């Protein structure tokens, strides 16, 4: 279908051919499906109703594009398991996606997988009601409640951070062969939207500090430290209001997975499911100014894929 592999040769060819006629509107619906590739991050937008098929496609794409690197023995997966909400309510990553992904990783030779999370609700309710504890168990992956297991916190410096200069991050996120971020996209009362970048708040110890010291700047700062190999945003169902916890009556079902190596690009694309422009989300504009990743949709290679 529209899955393409952009090599330098094809890029140059097509870039010369099409010139600089890429002034596309930000609405994702308006994006042309056939576009000449540009020198920017790839974002794959996988559409489909079957969650296993979505992940299957995502893994296929990931392995065609470098996969997990030369020796992926250990993999840390960051999901969103913060809330005591059911999968349909869209406050947490869908458990079916998580199981399918972890099983796919095992098949690809990853030896150890782990899901650490610092939940907002008590883990006894957040991990169970979200279905993620079971999802992880089905794929033989331990879920670690960072709220209880304080031994994993480690201090890290953020030399590029403007507000956040040091942060206590769970060591599993920093000392692993592969780091994959698998958040859910939803409305957020404080941060406007939460997708991949804001999901790292569940990986740090002191979230309160962020709120006191310019939340949006801290979200962007954190992404200068934690850089996942892959970002897979769950936009199968999205909450348009009353986030991050819901339950919301304002639900939309785009049935999408957004996959990218660039977490900022993935967030920028996903934000257009909610807003006309990335300007609506301040941490994205900060990320653009700090050059943490690509926020201009016109400078990304957006591949629309059907699963």
């Amino acid at each position: 279908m529209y899955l393409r592999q952009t090599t330098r040769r094809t890029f140059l060819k097509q870039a010369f051919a099409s010139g600089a006629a890429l002034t596309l509107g930000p609405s994702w619906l308006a994006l042309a499906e056939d576009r000449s590739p540009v020198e920017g991050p790839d974002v794959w937008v996988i559409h489909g109703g079957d969650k296993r098929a979505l992940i299957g496609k995502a893994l296929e794409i990931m392995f065609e594009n470098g996969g997990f690197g030369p020796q992926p023995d250990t993999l840390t997966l960051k999901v969103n398991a913060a809330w005591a909400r059911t999968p349909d309510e869209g406050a947490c990553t869908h458990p079916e996606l998580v199981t399918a992904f972890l099983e796919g990783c095992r098949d690809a030779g990853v030896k150890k997988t782990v899901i650490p999370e610092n939940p907002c609700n008590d883990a006894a309710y957040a991990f169970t009601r979200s279905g993620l504890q079971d999802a992880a168990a089905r794929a033989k992956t331990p879920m670690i409640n960072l709220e209880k297991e304080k031994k994993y916190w480690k201090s890290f410096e953020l030399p590029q951070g403007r507000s956040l200069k040091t942060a206590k991050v769970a060591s599993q996120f920093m000392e692993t062969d592969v780091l994959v971020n698998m958040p859910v996209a939803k409305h957020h009362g404080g941060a406007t939207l939460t997708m991949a970048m804001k999901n790292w708040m569940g990986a740090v110890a002191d979230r309160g500090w962020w709120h006191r010291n310019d939340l949006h700047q801290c979200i962007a700062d954190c992404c200068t430290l934690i850089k996942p190999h892959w970002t897979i945003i769950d936009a199968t169902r999205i909450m348009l209001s009353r986030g991050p916890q819901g339950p919301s009556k304002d639900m939309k079902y785009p049935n999408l997975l957004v996959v990218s190596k660039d977490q900022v690009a993935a967030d920028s694309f996903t934000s257009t499911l909610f807003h006309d422009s990335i300007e609506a989300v301040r941490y994205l504009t900060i990320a653009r100014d700090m050059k943490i990743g690509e926020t201009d949709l016109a400078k990304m290679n957006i591949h629309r894929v059907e699963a």
Partner: protein
Amino acid sequence: MIRILHLGPRSAVRAAVRLLLLALAVLFAFGGPLPFWMKRIFPSFSPLSLIASALAQRGWYAGVFWMTPPLVVLLMGLFRGRMFCNWICPAGTLFHLASPRKCIAHVSRRRWSGYIFWIIIFSSLAGFPLLFILEPQPLLQRDLLWTGRGLNALALVPGLVFPLFLLLGIFQPMIWCTHFCPAGHFFDFLRHLRKSPAQTFSKERRELLAGLCIGLPAACAAAHLPGFKTKNKWMPALPPGAHDADQFGAICHRCYACVDSCPTGILRAGFRVDRPLTSWFQPEMNPEFGACEEFCDNCSRACPTGAIKKTSVDEKRMIQIGIAEVNREACLAWTDGEHCMVCDEYCPYNAIETSFSETGIPRPIVNPEICRGCGFCQHACPAVRMGRAIIVRGLEKQRVLEG
């Protein structure tokens, strides 16, 4: 009676049974992998607790499963007197173990147990079981929980009763059981009542009259006198199912099974001098330590006296135990202009509404018709400049909100 108790474990069987039950009581209290409601077992053995709570609440508060053991113990008392004390009571076993054979010095010659018993009964009739804290089953549990899981320091104050009598027992053996225990007196009373009702009452007349003359007015005072009730003062929220703040403090006999069963730690032994005497050291919600989980009803399932009424999770979610209030001066959004809204983020019930400033900063407003007082907002509030910017004010009378 003293002789019976003091003969010690003459038969090996009885000694074995008593030690086994003591071990079980310790095991249940420490819990470990056992379900949390195990902590309810020993405190709910007491028929005195059953009767006093039922009198105060004007109805049975527990199902058949939890009412059978105390009723069996009641029959045991009717036919065998202090059989419960001599075979089952774990506190009694410990008192026994610590007591020497001979009396070294008399701490008290007067027996207070009858007075305590009748004060409990008559004050329960008025709706407020006073001196309920001297019920023997929670005595030991309080200390076991305290040493086991670390209840907060305040729980230690009611927990002093047990070590105090353990100490006194060294001078006057078994002083608690023979001279103070209201439940033990209840068993004696029941046995005498079956044998010769008329004689029992003539023998008990002093205690009974004292109970009537002290218990009833004291309970009425606790319920109605302004000295006991403080009006318009801040009060902490109580666990969902406690319904009436005044009565809760009286019916709760401070076994702290709920505090220990609370997964988040919001439930703690509290103490406020400005609150009524009956509320001292009662379990209270303190959102500084946790938040009341939406889908949890552990405390109502752990409570042996019905002070926290049994509710299903669906019912519990709708109980308003308090209302949060925003202190705008302390608030990061209202005063510092930060993008915060953490209270809204954490609120499980969507009770926080947003008011946007001119510059587009979202600021929280609590909807008191939706707020349950669960404390998530307070627990998560990141403000430090003037302390938390959102505080839960407890309700005297809990409300059930409409879905």
